[in-house]
C-alpha cells in the first residue's frame, strides 16, 4: 500500500532523512519510532505530498507522491505534528470544511461529521470554538479531521501527544480498531505505544533506519538476548576491549554510574551463553575491581536507546 525506496531529504546542508526504504502492506499498522530530530516528520511530509524528496521515490496505492499527488491526496488522512486547526471555527464547522476540501458529498457530511466526533469522543464539543478547547481535545479534533473522509491510508504524526493517560488509551484503541480497514503509519517516540498499537516497527535514528521488524519479533529479540550489567574499576578503554574479546559477548556499551569509582558497562551476549564466570576471572586476573554484576533483561526502551545511540559509540 505504501512503498518508499531510497528516500533522501536534504534541508540546505542538513540531511534529515537518508536512503530510507520500507513498505507497508494493506491493513497494517506501522510504528515509526525514533528520538527527536530522527526524521519522522520529514518522512511523513514527503509521503503526504507536502514537500518533495531530494531523491528517491515514494508511492501510495501505486500512485507516486510527486507525479500523481492528487490521487495520493484523495486517499490519505493526515494528522500533522501540530494539528492544522482554524481556531475561530467551531468543531463541527471545521470538520465539515475539511470533509468538503477532501471532496466529500455535502449530504454525506451531515451524517459523517457526528459519526467521526463520536469515534473521537468530541461529540460534546461539537458547537464549541476550537480556540477554547483544551490541548487534548484539539489533538482529538486533529485526529477526527484525518478520519473524516474515511481514507484508505492514515498518516499520524505523534497522535497521542498532549493527551492524558485515559485519552491515550482511548486513542490507541481507536487506532487499533482502524487497522485492517485502513493502512496506518504512526510516529512516536514512546515505545509502549508501538508495542500496544502496531503490528510492525521501524526504528529510525538520524535519518536512517536502524531496525525494522514485527513488534513481537523485536520484543522477543530484545527479551531473548541476555544482558549483563557490570561495574568495574579499571582503565575504561582496556576494560571495554577485553570484555568485548570474551567468548559469547556480542556487544559492550558504557553506562553512566552514579558512584564515583568504577565504570558501568552493559554487556550483550549470545542467547544461552553465561559469561559471568569468565568475566569475573578476567577482572580479578587483571587486578581490576569488580564492584557490581547483575543480569538485566533489556526493556524495549533500552533496545531503543541501544539501537539509536550505537552510532555515537563507534568512533569512541
Amino acid at each position, binding site marked *: 500500500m505504501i512503498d518508499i525506496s531510497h528516500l533522501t531529504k*536534504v*534541508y*540546505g546542508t542538513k540531511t534529515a532523512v537518508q536512503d530510507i526504504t520500507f513498505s507497508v502492506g494493506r491493513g497494517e499498522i506501522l510504528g515509526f519510532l525514533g528520538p527527536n530530530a530522527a526524521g519522522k516528520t520529514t518522512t511523513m*511530509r514527503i509521503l*503526504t*505530498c*507536502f*514537500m*518533495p*524528496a*531530494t531523491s528517491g521515490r515514494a508511492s501510495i496505492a501505486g500512485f507516486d507522491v510527486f507525479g500523481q499527488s*492528487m490521487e495520493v*491526496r*484523495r486517499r*490519505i488522512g*493526515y494528522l*500533522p*505534528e*501540530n*494539528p*492544522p*486547526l*482554524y*481556531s*475561530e*471555527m467551531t468543531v463541527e*464547522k471545521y470538520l465539515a*470544511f*475539511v470533509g*468538503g*476540501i*477532501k*471532496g466529500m458529498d455535502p449530504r454525506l457530511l451531515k451524517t459523517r461529521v457526528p459519526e467521526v466526533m463520536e469515534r473521537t469522543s468530541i461529540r460534546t464539543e461539537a458547537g464549541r470554538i476550537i480556540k477554547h478547547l483544551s490541548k487534548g481535545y484539539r489533538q482529538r479534533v486533529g485526529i477526527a*479531521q484525518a478520519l473524516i473522509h474515511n481514507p484508505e491510508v492514515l498518516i499520524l504524526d505523534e497522535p497521542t501527544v498532549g493527551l492524558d493517560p485515559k485519552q491515550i488509551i482511548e486513542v490507541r484503541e481507536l487506532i487499533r480498531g482502524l487497522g485492517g480497514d485502513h493502512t496506518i503509519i504512526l510516529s512516536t517516540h514512546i515505545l509502549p505505544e508501538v508495542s500496544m498499537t502496531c503490528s510492525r516497527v521501524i526504528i529510525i535514528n538520524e535519518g536512517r533506519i536502524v531496525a525494522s521488524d514485527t513488534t513481537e519479533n523485536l520484543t522477543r529479540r530484545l527479551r531473548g538476548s541476555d544482558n549483563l550489567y557490570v561495574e568495574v574499576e579499571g582503565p575504561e578503554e582496556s576494560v571495554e576491549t577485553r570484555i568485548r574479546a570474551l567468548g559469547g559477548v556480542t556487544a559492550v556499551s558504557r553506562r553512566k554510574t552514579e558512584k564515583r569509582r568504577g565504570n558501568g558497562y552493559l554487556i550483550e551476549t549470545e542467547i544461552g551463553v553465561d559469561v559471568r564466570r569468565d568475566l569475573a576471572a578476567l577482572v580479578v586476573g587483571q587486578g581490576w575491581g569488580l564492584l557490581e554484576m547483575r543480569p538485566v533483561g533489556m526493556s524495549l526502551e533500552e533496545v531503543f536507546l541501544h539501537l539509536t545511540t550505537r552510532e555515537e559509540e563507534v568512533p569512541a
Partner: protein
Amino acid sequence: MRNTWIIFRRELRSYFSSPLAYAVMAGFLLIAGFFFYAILTSFLNTALRSEMQAQYYRMAPPPINVNLMALRPFFHNLAVVLIFTVPLITMRLYAEEFRNGTIELLMTSPVRNWETVLGKALAAFVLYASLIAGTLVYAAILFLSGKPEPGQIITSYIGLLLLGGAFVAVGIFLSTLTENQIVAGFLTIILLLLFWVVGWADEFAGPGVGSVLAYVSLLSHFDEFAKGVIDLKDVVLYLSFIGFFLFLTHLSLESKRWRTR
C-alpha cells in the same frame, strides 16, 4: 470550482468572526467620512464665495460642478487611504496558514493551489467591496442635498472595484512570502505606494520611460474613472494586473512544493 467556493466561504466567515474586519471597516469609514466632510465644506465655501462675488458684480453665478470639484478629490483621497487599508485585509491570507500550520492541511488535501488562491482572493475582495459599499452613504448624502451627476459616481465605483481588486492581488501574493502577517502587510503597503508614485515619474523621467511608468501607476488609471471616463485600456490594465499577481501567488505556492531542498 467547488473547492474555491468552500475555501471562499470559510475565509469570509473567518473575516467576519474576527475583530480585525470590523476595526478596519470602522476606521476606513471614519477616515472616508472625514475626507467627505472636509472636501464638501471647502467646496461649499468656494461655492458660497463665488455666489457672493456674482451678486456683488451683479452677474449670473458661474457654474460650479460638485462632481469635478468635490467628488473627484474625494475619490482620489479614498484611493490613497485604500493603499493602507487593503493590506490589513490581505496580510493574513496565507501568512496565517503558514504560522498555524493549516497550510499542511490545504497542501495535503486534493485541492489545487489556484483554487485556494481564487477562493481567498474572492473573500478578501468581497470584504473590500463591503467596505466600499459603506461609502455609498456619503454619495447618498450628495443626492439628498444636490444634483450630482450619477454617471461619474458609477464610474468611480467601478474604478474603485478594479483598483481594489489589483490591491488585493498584490496583497495575497506578498502574503505567501512570509509567515509573519505584519511583514506581509508592510511589504504590501510599500509595493502599493511604489505603484502609486511611479506615476509621478512621468514628469521628470524621459518621455519613453515616463509613459511606461505612468502606465503601470495604478492610481493614475483610477483618476480616469474618477473623472467619469471608462477607457477599455484602463480596464484591461487592471484586469491583467490582477491576473498577473494571482498567477504569481499560485507560482509562489507551487514553488514551495517543488523546491527539493
